[in-house]
């Protein structure tokens, strides 16, 4: 018996000892240094504005399914053979999930970014102010970069520059000209009522109106929704909400009308009946396969449509309520940033500047990306044939500039507002599980808790 007790005691001592080793950190987890966005105070003379001559390998982290960044890095290596690229790709939803961790723990030199605010707050994104001064980016039209600025209070839209664009994209409505002809639609709708009418005619003719993607973690119904929001109301409050300005609210009178309008479309059967399981690729294959009259999408597909369906696709901006009214569109730089811990930050900045200024790079941007290149107002623009979709989207970009109707995307308000709030809520709206007012309330609640939290 005593023998037994002795043995038990030994074991207990051993266990206690191991316990002491286990709970070695009773202090709060996390670093002790609070990192806040630092305004850069240095002069521009201190940054290197070349990639140097040593052989270096740049680490890139890009989005799957978009050939532009890869095409640009390949061309860059052609022009600067000492710089090679090691590129990893993931779907956007995955990048959104990984952003903070990757920037902090596996720092890329150049990374496709979702919303930048959280990353700036966490101090893992490189402040680009010095490079902006050195390269003269601050002489570009201010609207190009304002979405990429974050001030010291953590609000977006002003302050230091934390990212750059590879181009400036724009979203609207693409339509299939053959299907449009079938329902007698010879030109783009001029008012929202005309668009409703076209959808109704398509429904009557047994044609799927909009095979929008809305499955998995990607609520693509946010595209038509935000367009409707801009048709029913002003763009400024929407931008304030996305930029996390104090007191901003998505749950407004005009936005409610927009959600109700979207619900009307759903109930009328204008969307494909399986939108909740369509991913982006499925939407594209339906549209190119002639199985959808419209899709709400961005000009990054223009080049693609000009290749696969030449002359068969048209593009228009979301029509206003009244004919001739102001038009708006989600328009955002294809955001790329540099990790605060990147190995080659100067070369990354040089590349970003090269993309906006080099003639070949700008040609690639337009031909492959289909969108407007970044850069100065008077910079070189490649020729684009009149009857292409690319020409139509570039023209639409000019119109948005005139109307000052550019908006960032409502999915970019916080890093998880899209997968965790817009997407489930829009999927519920399709399934009839949520009403418009409850949807906006729920998104606003999530938004507030995510900003706090």
């Amino acid at each position, binding site marked *: 018996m005593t023998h037994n007790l002795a043995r038990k005691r030994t074991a207990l001592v051993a266990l206690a000892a191991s316990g002491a080793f286990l709970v070695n950190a009773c202090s709060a987890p996390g670093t002790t240094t609070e990192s806040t966005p630092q305004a850069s105070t240095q002069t521009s003379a201190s940054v290197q504005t070349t990639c140097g001559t040593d052989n270096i390998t740049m680490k890139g982290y890009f989005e799957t399914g978009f050939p532009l960044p890869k095409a640009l890095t390949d061309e860059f290596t052609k022009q600067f053979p000492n710089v090679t690229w090691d590129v990893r790709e993931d779907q956007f939803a995955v990048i959104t999930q990984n952003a903070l961790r990757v920037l902090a723990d596996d720092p890329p030199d150049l990374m496709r970014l979702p919303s930048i605010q959280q990353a700036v707050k966490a101090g893992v994104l490189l402040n680009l102010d010095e490079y902006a001064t050195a390269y003269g980016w601050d002489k570009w039209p201010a609207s190009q970069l304002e979405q990429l600025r974050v001030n010291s209070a953590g609000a977006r839209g002003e302050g230091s520059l934390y990212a750059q664009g590879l181009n400036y994209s724009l979203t609207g409505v693409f339509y299939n000209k053959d299907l449009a002809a079938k329902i007698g639609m010879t030109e783009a709708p001029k008012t929202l009522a005309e668009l409703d009418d076209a959808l109704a005619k398509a429904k009557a003719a047994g044609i799927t109106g909009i095979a929008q993607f809305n499955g998995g973690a990607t609520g693509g119904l946010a595209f038509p929704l935000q367009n409707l929001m801009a048709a029913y109301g002003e763009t400024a409050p929407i931008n304030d909400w996305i930029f996390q300005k104090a007191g901003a609210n998505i749950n407004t009178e005009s936005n409610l009308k927009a959600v109700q309008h979207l619900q009307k479309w759903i109930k009328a059967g204008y969307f494909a009946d399986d939108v909740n399981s369509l*991913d982006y690729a499925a939407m594209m294959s339906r549209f190119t396969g002639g199985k959808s009259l419209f899709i709400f999408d961005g000009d990054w597909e223009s080049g693609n449509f000009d290749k696969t369906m030449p002359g068969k696709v048209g593009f228009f901006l979301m029509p206003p309520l009244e004919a001739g009214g102001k038009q708006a569109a989600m328009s955002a730089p294809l955001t790329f940033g540099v990790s605060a811990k990147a190995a080659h930050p100067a070369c990354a900045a040089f590349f970003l500047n090269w993309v906006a200024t080099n003639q070949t790079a700008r040609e690639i941007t337009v031909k492959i990306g289909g969108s407007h290149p970044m850069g100065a107002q008077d910079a070189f623009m490649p020729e684009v044939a009149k009857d292409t979709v690319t020409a139509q989207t570039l023209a639409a970009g000019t119109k948005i500039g005139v109307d000052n109707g550019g908006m960032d995307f409502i999915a970019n308000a916080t890093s998880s507002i899209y997968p965790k709030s817009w997407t489930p809520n829009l999927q519920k709206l399709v399934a009839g599980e949520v009403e418009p007012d409850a949807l906006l309330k729920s998104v606003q609640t999530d938004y507030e808790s995510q900003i706090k939290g």
Partner: protein
Amino acid sequence: MIASKRETVIGRILLILLMLWTLMPFVSLFVTALHKSGSYPAGVEWPADPQWGNFALAFQSAQMGALVWSSVQIVLGVVPISLVIATMAGYAIGHLRVPGHKLLLLLFVFGLTLPFEGIITPLYYQIRDFGLLNTRWAIILPLIGLFMPFSVYWMRAHFVNMPAELSEAAEVDGANRWQIFWRVHVPLARPALSSLGILLFLWTWNQFLLTVVLVNDPLKRTAAGALGAFQGQWGTDIPLLCAGSLLIMAPTLLVFFIFQRQFVAALLQGSMKG
């Protein structure tokens, strides 16, 4: 025991249904893989123009060679180490019965039902602090730890049934404990070890959560993790995705068909004993 005719027929029909239920998905996958890259084939229909090249394309874009080699390296890291240290622990707890062996066993058994998601968050920070993120060690080291409960339990179950006389005979010959262990016990434990080896190989090869969280580079992942990355990269191209999935599954299936008896036996024992 002679089965009646009717029973036999029903039994056979059921078996065939069961096999169809298991295999149909693979047939669908295979047929889809032969469609034109980028198309959206409907259900199962034999393509007019089978694209056998898809497999070559998927092989290249998935960098299959590097990927399988990576999984092999991870398996080679996890399985031998786990087998050796679990056997030693099982021997001490089951055969030597060191003081406190019951408590030790209880401690290991406690980990048997642990869902990996339960500890993945601190594991991430721990691996980061070790500076091992995005390396194969990030998968190997935690997996060895996570497999210990089952492995120790399994080996202990074997050693508990080893008669004490074995050691006594060897001790008389003047062998020390270490020699007894290696010369007498390990050879006798071979069947238990090989089954455990098979199970650990499978669980390592198919481990997904750890790879998603701890390793970004598909070429440093397990097969399952690489498949996830492949879906991330090619999920937009269904035929290519199907071809790639088949290729990534092929090595395991091949090994399984060669050693099917051992596999089935190990898995059945594993769930019964474990």
